[in-house]
């Protein structure tokens, strides 16, 4: 990935990146530590809650002990206000921790009180108090829920003890009312942590005391709505990691129940307080981390500067070299790898300078060679733009280098096309070339202007190290070559003509003599005339073969194809040859027709050749069968003789030119040994095949096949 930032930015970023894990460790550490602090705080709160629970139990036990003592006094059973009031009031100073001590008869009526009481005032009843009923019912001491005193209208807690008669049956109750701030007083000596809160509720979840909320409305005392209080009431200690307190701060805390009386004691602390230590530590660490980061960034900047300044120099140098200032050098003296890089860079620049000089030289040399060559050369790049053209290109096609260089090749092609015999065809092939970048084209381009000339165009893709660079086009002037070829053709034609005309005379006159005197003046004369006739035919055939072979070697056998009926043609040839021999029976067999596209004269030549051979190499006479057959999409012609056959060891070579299978045998009938060679060339030029079967002494069969015309007849 390539980042679009400077080296400096990248370095700074990487330094910061390296510092990130440290930051992560700090945070993780803080989390672990705060976890530990919270757990510690919770333990502490639990301990406080349990301690307070124990204090609570002790407090209630003391109150019950006082009540028990009172209940056991004989005066208690009197339920006589006049006796009990003074008695209780005399005892009151001994128990400053109790608000009052009352005695109630079995119906709940107050029978005595430790408070100063105006005589004659009506006495209150506690018959409806649950604790009162509970004590009477169970005949055991009990601690009341949080009550609202009917005299003071303040919350109060009473420890009640039954007064028993002689038989142990409850006859009344002694009630010791605890001073509401008794717990506060008991806890006064305990140093509370900042924000520390301790509260207790009775066994009905009614708040008895809360260090932070000394003044609570009665209805505010109901804590039963808190699930954690309910849970604590069921006897399980509760640890609260975090909760929103009724006064709106986030706290943690522990709830425990007093073992004996089942009251709930809660100790809570703001989370903030619990974490105070860890937070301070984190702040300190963050501070040192920041310091480290700043230091690291400073170091990175410094490093970047060390790296960047030589690089800037190298960059400037590279740009200068790119612009051709090859002699520029850098001076980096940092004594490190940068200096080494600078040195290497300078060496490279020096070598580049030398190489470029060499390249320029060899380039000039190449251009000189291309310019001096007697061919027109033009080079196009992949976009089809002319990148180079040599002198000949300009001369031959009337082009100016500056007009076409860098232009699309169409510009040049249009100009050349205007000079050709068939501009449209030329342009069409150019279009093919421009659409097929890797096509190889070889063709002749005939110019009619300014002077008629024929060029051979060779166009081929140019590769360098397997990479396509463009295309080279190469024109060579073959006008003279073509002229010589034509001369040679004309010479051959004329030679054949000049040779054949006298033969025609000889043959004609011989035949004339034969016509005039069929039997001759002398019996030997007739025979001589026949020999002359035959030899002139042979001479003619030799001339013809010579001509054919010359043409084949020049690759100039021209076919003039037309639709012909092979059956008809073969039949005509057979019928034409039949009269020339007495010894042989020429038979013909074939279908109604077999339409092919072929050069009539050439095929005739092949048939004549095969039939001539058949006749010639059947000196004893016999049947010579010619058959035309049709097989799928081709027509097959078979010529069969019962003659001497071809020796096996000579069979392989019979289609070679100038090979004469019967040379030096009794069946050597002369000839140049080109008949089968020409036949094979003709058949193959028609996309056909020629083959034979032969057995020495039994005869030969020659087959040739030609594709049937695809056109519907």
């Amino acid at each position, binding site marked *: 990935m390539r980042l679009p930032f400077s080296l400096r930015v990248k370095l700074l970023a990487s330094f910061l990146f390296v510092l990130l894990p440290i930051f992560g460790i700090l945070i993780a550490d803080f989390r672990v530590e705060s976890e530990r602090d919270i757990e510690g705080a919770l333990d502490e709160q639990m301990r406080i809650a349990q301690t307070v629970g124990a204090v609570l139990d002790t407090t209630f036990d003391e109150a019950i002990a006082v009540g028990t003592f009172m209940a056991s006094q004989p005066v208690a059973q009197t339920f006589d206000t006049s006796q009990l009031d003074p008695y209780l009031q005399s005892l009151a100073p001994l128990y400053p921790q109790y608000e009052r001590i009352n005695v109630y008869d079995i119906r709940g009526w107050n029978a005595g009180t430790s408070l100063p009481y105006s005589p004659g005032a009506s006495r209150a009843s506690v018959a409806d108090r649950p604790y009162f009923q509970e004590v009477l019912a169970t005949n055991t001491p009990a601690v009341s829920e949080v009550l609202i005193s009917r005299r003071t209208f303040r919350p109060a807690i009473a420890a009640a003890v039954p007064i028993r008669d002689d038989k142990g049956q409850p006859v009344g109750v002694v009630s010791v009312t605890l001073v509401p701030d008794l717990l506060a007083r008991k806890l006064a000596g305990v140093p509370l942590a900042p924000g520390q809160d301790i509260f207790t509720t009775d066994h009905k979840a009614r708040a008895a005391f809360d260090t932070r909320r000394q003044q609570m409305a009665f209805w505010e005392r109901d804590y039963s709505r808190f699930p954690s209080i309910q849970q604590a009431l069921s006897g399980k200690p509760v640890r609260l990691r975090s909760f929103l307190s009724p006064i709106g701060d986030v706290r943690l805390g522990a709830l425990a129940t007093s073992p004996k009386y089942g009251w709930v004691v809660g100790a809570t602390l703001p989370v903030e307080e619990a974490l105070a230590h860890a937070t301070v530590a984190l702040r300190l660490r963050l501070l040192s981390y920041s310091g480290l980061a700043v230091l690291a960034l400073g170091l990175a900047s410094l490093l970047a500067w060390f790296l960047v300044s030589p690089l800037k120099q190298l960059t400037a140098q590279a740009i200068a070299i790119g612009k051709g200032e090859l002699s520029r050098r850098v001076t980096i003296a940092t004594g490190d790898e940068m200096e080494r890089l600078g040195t290497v860079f300078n060496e490279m620049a020096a070598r580049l300078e030398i190489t470029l000089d060499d390249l320029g030289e060899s380039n000039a040399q190449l251009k000189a060679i291309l310019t001096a060559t007697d061919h027109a050369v033009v080079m196009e790049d992949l976009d089809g733009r002319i990148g180079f053209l040599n002198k000949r290109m300009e001369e031959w096609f009337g082009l100016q280098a500056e007009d076409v260089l860098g232009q699309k090749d169409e510009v040049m092609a249009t100009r050349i096309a205007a000079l050709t015999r068939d501009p449209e065809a030329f342009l069409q092939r150019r279009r093919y070339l421009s659409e097929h970048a890797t096509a190889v084209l070889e063709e002749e381009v005939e110019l009619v202007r300014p002077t008629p000339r024929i060029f051979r165009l060779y166009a081929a893709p140019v590769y360098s190290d397997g990479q396509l660079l463009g295309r080279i086009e190469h024109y060579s002037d073959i006008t003279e070559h073509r002229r010589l070829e034509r001369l040679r053709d004309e010479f051959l*034609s004329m030679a*054949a003509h000049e040779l054949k005309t*006298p033969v025609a*005379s000889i*043959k004609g*006159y011989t035949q*004339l003599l034969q016509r005039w005197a069929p039997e001759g003046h002398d019996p030997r004369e007739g025979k001589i005339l026949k020999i002359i006739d035959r030899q002139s035919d042979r001479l003619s055939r030799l001339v013809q073969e010579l001509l054919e072979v010359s043409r084949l070697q020049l690759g100039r056998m021209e076919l003039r194809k037309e639709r012909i009926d092979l059956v008809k043609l073969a039949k005509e040839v057979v019928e034409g040859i039949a009269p020339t021999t007495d010894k042989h029976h020429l038979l013909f067999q074939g279908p109604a027709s077999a339409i092919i596209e072929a050069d009539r004269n050439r095929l005739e030549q092949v048939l004549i050749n095969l039939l001539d051979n058949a006749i010639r190499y059947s000196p004893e006479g016999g049947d010579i069968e010619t058959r035309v057959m049709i097989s799928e999409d081709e027509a097959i012609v078979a010529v069969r003789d019962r003659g001497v056959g071809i020796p096996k060891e000579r069979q392989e070579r019979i289609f070679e030119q100038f090979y004469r299978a019967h040379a030096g045998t009794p069946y050597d009938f002369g000839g140049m040994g080109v008949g089968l060679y020409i036949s094979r060339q003709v058949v193959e030029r028609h996309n056909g095949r020629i083959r034979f079967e032969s057995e020495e002494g039994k005869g030969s069969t020659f087959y040739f096949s030609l594709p049937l015309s695809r056109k519907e007849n």
Partner: protein
Amino acid sequence: MTTEKHKSVMVVEDDLDLLDLIAVILTEEGYRVVPATDGRDALAKVAKEMPALILLDVWMPVMDGPEFLARFRRMYDHATPIVLLTAAEEGRIADAEIQAEGHLSKPFDLDELLRCVAVYVSENPGSGGGMRPSAEALESQNDEMV
């Protein structure tokens, strides 16, 4: 066949021996032979009398066969058949043969020659006398005479 005899056949051939031979055999068969030794000679002679058939050699001095053929076809209608006497110089006669009715390869059998002449002469029963040259033909004929 007798009516076809006495019809004129022009033979254009520079080899005088061959010309003589063809003349002898055709005369024997009853044709009237108009000999010409080259294309120009032939053109001059067809102007006077249009033959029923022209046997035309290919290679000749002064004016060769193909050139005669081209001029002749330009000057006259296609009515008169022309048979080329060739030595199978196909490259040379390729164009010319299109305008010729047929060809006879040298050397030929006399029977072959006679069959060929008989066929073309009978196919062209209307000729034998001169044909009216076209105006264009007359002009180029004038050019020739200049």
